């Protein structure tokens, strides 16, 4: 169904979201790994507004912003849908994806990059947001139900990167005691084949976090 390329970055959760969706649907694509410290002319040409990864190129036409790309992928390749069909459930999926991106993830990043009082505050905030998210999970295996859906894909930072960040910083945010349901989901998540095969190498990611934590002010 046309030529598919993905401008992404091995360690970027946003980039991996797109790969998860493409693989889940059995779509073949060419991955172009961007050096984010030295962005290619191709990236700057195809995402002049934000100059960020991921950018999906379908038959040469670019789509940017990970969740916009996920909607496009679901509408274009109909196998294994990741969005619910019904408008109300679809609206709920969009709501939780937005909640993860606007509340959960920024709080988590803030924990990693801040120190002392700011970090304590960020931890408190992250706990509140993750509790809210956990409540949404209830007794489902995945946010998408029996199989992964768009919210599970968007929650990839929580599903995988967070564990690595916790190891790199020594901070325990998500534990079985504090988040029993979310912890279960994380276990299911990283065992799920389409997820597991699309995660960055753990050791490499851990090293990257450790070195950035020791380096002067990194802007994500």
């Amino acid at each position: 169904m046309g030529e598919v390329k993905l401008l992404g970055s091995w360690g970027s959760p946003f980039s991996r979201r797109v790969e998860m969706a493409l693989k889940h649907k059995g779509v073949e694509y060419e991955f172009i790994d961007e050096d984010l410290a030295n962005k290619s002319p191709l990236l700057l040409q195809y995402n002049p507004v934000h100059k960020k990864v991921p950018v999906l190129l379908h038959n040469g036409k670019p789509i940017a912003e990970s969740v916009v790309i996920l909607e496009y992928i679901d509408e274009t390749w109909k196998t294994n849908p990741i969005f619910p069909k019904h408008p109300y459930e679809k609206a709920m999926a969009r709501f939780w994806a937005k909640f993860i991106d606007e509340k959960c993830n920024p709080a988590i990043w803030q924990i990693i990059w801040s120190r002392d009082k700011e970090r304590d505050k960020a931890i408190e905030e992250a706990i509140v947001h993750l509790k809210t998210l956990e409540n949404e999970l209830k007794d489902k295996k995945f946010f998408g139900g029996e199989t992964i859906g768009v919210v599970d894909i968007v929650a990839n930072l929580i599903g995988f990167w967070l564990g690595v960040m916790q190891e790199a910083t020594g901070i325990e945010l998500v534990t079985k005691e504090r988040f029993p349901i979310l912890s279960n989901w994380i276990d299911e998540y990283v065992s799920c084949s389409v997820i597991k095969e699309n995660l960055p190498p753990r050791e490499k990611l851990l090293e990257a976090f450790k070195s950035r934590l020791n380096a002067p002010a990194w802007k994500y």
Partner: protein
Amino acid sequence: MAEEVILLDFWSSPFGMRVRIALAEKGVKYEYREEDLRNKSPLLLQMNPVHKKIPVLIHNGKPICESLIAVQYVDEVWKDKSPLLPSDPYLRAQARFWADFIDKKIYDIGRKIWTTKGDEQEAAKKEFIEALKLLEGELGNKPYFGGESMGYVDVALIPFYSWFYAYETCGNFSIEPECPVLIAWAKRCLQKESVSKSLPDPQKVYEFVLVLKKKFGIE
């Protein structure tokens, strides 16, 4: 089948205006409920426990929160009239991209214009105009972002036009000389009843901003 549609809203909210316009475009009858944001109703807190914010669209008792999510929901449920999103997936992706851009930029930068002064305000004004110019580029010489008729991006952006007068007056600058095409687009949108009936009087918005400035102790 009796449809019950309620919109919990606040008169000056650009986000609320988006949903009003979408419902009007689709000819949906609904009950508009004005919230007192200093004294939020039990219904609002029950229907949007996560954010406790307006707008909240309540359709047959089920809440949809976040303005662009509500607009997409309206577009999908009342799909037989005035489609807001195009049918082509690529064009839909472009529309979503630009609506996301508007969400990331316009409100926050606009807010900086009336809540700051000096260098910070100058920087905000510059960034604001740059964002509008990018949007102008996207509009091109189409009558609307949606093409021949209003679409998703038009609905996402036009509410902020009711705040332009407030931004301009607080920031002591004029948008039209910098973005004539965009202003022409805005006036074109206002010719439509769905828009003109959904947007407040810019003078009233400015007066409201002055009240807020006083309340927050902003010069």
